[in-house]
Structures are given as C-alpha cells and as structure tokens.
C-alpha cells in the first residue's frame, strides 16, 4: 500500500512536470496541497447546508435537492437530504447507517461491503479533511485555478473510472474548506454540490452522527 502511494505520488509529480497547468502553471501543486492539508488539519468539525444540482444529460434536466452536511474529526460524517426525500447516512469510521423516510427504515452498511457507499463516504471524508494520501492514491490531480483553488481529480481505479469521469473540487477563498464539488459521470451526467452556511469548529451534538428514529 505504501509502495502504491509512493508510486501514485511519483506519477502525480511526473504529471505535474510533464503537463502544462494553464493559468496556474507557476504554482507548485504539491506545496499547495500540503498547505490545504495543513489548513484542513485545523478543522475539528464542520457543518453546512448544501444544494445538490443533478444534470441529466439525456433529458437536459436539472434536479435540485437540498440538505445538510456535518463532519467531525477524525472520521464522522452526516449526509442528510431534506428535499425531495428525507434520506441520508451517517458514517462512524468504516461503518455507517442509512435511512430513508419512504421506507421508514434504517440499515447498517460498511465501507467494505457496500462499494458505492464506500466510495461516497471516503470521498466526503477526504474532501472534509483534505486527506492527501488517500486522494493521491485514488486520483490523478491537476490544478485548474489558483485563486480560489480549483482541482481536477481523475480516478485511477478502473472500477471507479467506469462511472466517474472526473471530480472538480473548489475551495473557499480562505482555503479553509471545500466550497463546491462537481462530479462528472461517464455518459455526460454531472452533480454539483454547493456548500453554504459553513460553520467550522463548532460543538456538534453526539446525535449529529446518529440516524434518526422512525416511530
């Protein structure tokens, strides 16, 4: 695994040397990423609202949803969709619970036995804490813009590349958190997540990382 990370890091560095970076070509991406990681390291908790805009290419249709997001170091997440359907999941380490107001059920999942949820949860965690080792083991990174920072991530894993073409991550102006994530799928669909009302390092109740009860 360590060899793989080193290899990926080497590939990233080689890519940076070989590939032009456009407007941001003077920036040392590796240094920038370390700065982002150092900044993220000061974030113990984060909560925000989000708007999710899903573009369906074949129908030229945009589906807008809204929800809430929370993160607490080192590995706790809550992703909750409020509209159009109240649903979501919480993650505590490698295990989590999903819920949905339609089925009025909660169900356990683990990152290991649910590959799709695993990818989603790991990505959210990686964005929240700017987990460079993980990101570099999974994606080829390019710097698209420096101010504010926008990165393009291309999956290295063939399975993931089978349905995700690329991710674009936009950081807030002060680089304290991720402001937007654009996920482009193979086939032309895309999902834009915009995080708003972001609050850093506030105390989050224990219940934040628990699934709701259905009575």
């Amino acid at each position, binding site marked *: 695994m360590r060899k793989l990370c080193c290899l990926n890091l080497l590939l990233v560095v080689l890519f940076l040397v070989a590939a032009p970076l456009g407007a941001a070509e003077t920036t040392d991406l590796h240094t920038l990423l370390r700065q982002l990681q150092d900044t993220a390291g000061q974030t113990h908790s984060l909560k925000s609202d989000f708007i999710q805009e899903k573009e369906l290419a074949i*129908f030229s249709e945009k589906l807008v949803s809204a929800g809430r997001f929370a993160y607490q170091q080192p590995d706790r997440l809550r*992703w909750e969709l409020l509209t159009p*359907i109240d649903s979501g999941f919480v993650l505590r380490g490698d295990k989590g619970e999903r819920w949905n107001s*339609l089925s009025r059920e909660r169900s356990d999942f683990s990152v290991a036995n649910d590959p799709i949820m695993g990818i989603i949860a790991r990505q959210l965690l990686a964005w929240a804490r700017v987990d460079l080792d993980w990101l570099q083991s999974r994606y080829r990174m390019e710097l698209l813009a420096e101010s504010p920072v926008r990165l393009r991530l291309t999956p290295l894993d063939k399975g993931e590349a089978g*349905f995700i073409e690329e991710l674009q991550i936009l950081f807030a102006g002060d680089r304290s958190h991720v402001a937007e994530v654009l996920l482009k799928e193979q086939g032309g669909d895309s999902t834009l997540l915009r995080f708003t009302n972001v609050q850093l390092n506030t105390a989050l109740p224990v219940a934040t990382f628990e699934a709701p009860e259905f009575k």
Partner: protein
Amino acid sequence: MRILSICLLLALGACGPTLSTLQLPENCRAAQSRSQLIAGNWRQQPHIWRLRQAALLEIGSKKIPLEGFLRLDLRHKEARLLALNEMGLVLFDLQVTEQGEVLHRAIPQIREHKAVARGVAQSLRRIFLQPLPEANDLLQTQGNSQGLRRSLSDGQLEFIFDCSGDLRETRQQAKSGEWQVIYNDYRDYAGARLPEEILFNDETHRVKLSLWQKEVKQEL
C-alpha cells in the same frame, strides 16, 4: 450481496405485500360513457411527461427506496427511468416499452442481478403503458364507481374509475398472475389530470412499487 439477498427472497417466496384496498369518494354518482372514460384516461392521452418521483420498491420483505426521474412518452408508449441514490449518482437507466426493456447503464450490483431491472420494468409497464381500457370492454356502473371489464383466457382484467372519471385502479386476476395498480390523489397539470400517488402490487412475484410525484412537467 444485498441484491443477491433480494433475489433469494424472491426465489423463496418470502412473505410479500398484500393487495391494497381502494378508497373512493362516496357522495357522488359515476355516470360516464365508455368512450368518455377512455378518452379522459390520462394514460391514453398523447402527452410526454417529465416526472421527478420518489419511489419505494419492495421485493418480499426487502425495501429499496429510490429517487427517480421518469420521461414518460405516452405518444410512443415508452418510459425511461433514471434511478438515483441520495448523492445523486445514477443507479440505473432503464428504457421500457410495451414489449420489452433496455438497461442502458447500471451500477454493477444491478447489472449482475437482472431480476431487479426486470421487476422495475414490468412494474412501470403495467403502471403507465399497458394494459389500457379498450372500446370492447364491458362497462359496469355501481353507484360511485364504474368499471371496464375484460375477460382473459385465464381470468379477468378490470379498470375502475371514480365518479370524476379518473382511473383509480387496474386489476388483473388470472392464473398467469395477480396484480393491481392504484392511482390516488389526482391533480391538474397543464390541462391534464395525473395521480400524485401510484401503488403497484404484484401478488404473484411479491413485488410492490410505490411512486410519489415530486415534480411534474409536460414536454411540449
């Protein structure tokens, strides 16, 4: 693994949903002609609808909630459903016609277990595309409801309309299979009336699909 469990449940014939009871308005009298009922049926009008839906698929005792976007082309008798998870990722893209279905793309777990896509396709076909009331069906009026009945080689097919002339139920009772669709809470959209809640229940295969319209647009 989860999908495999679903298929096992299906194969074992675990306890499934039972047929629902239709609730009709009572203080009114149904009195439309057969041709009026057929002409007023939204499924037989040549519109194209873009429907954002919440869906709950139940196979045996297993429940699978989904968000879906459905393009329903009643002109060409075709439905195309994109099912999404809570992160907006497309789980599958399924095209359904009167005769067949095409799974354009799907996450590996769905693609590997074709019974799931086939079950959804059959549900969508019966909810939206066929069977449809026909001019030869037998009209029966009973106070606040009217039915159009058709004899099948191994049973019976019936369409129930309420006193407003809205299609409220399609029910097949035959040796080849027992199933019903209930259409509830009709609302006006662009001059047509569509049900906000649709409940499909296939007794034979222990499959139930519940749909709720969240956004309705007509494609011009």
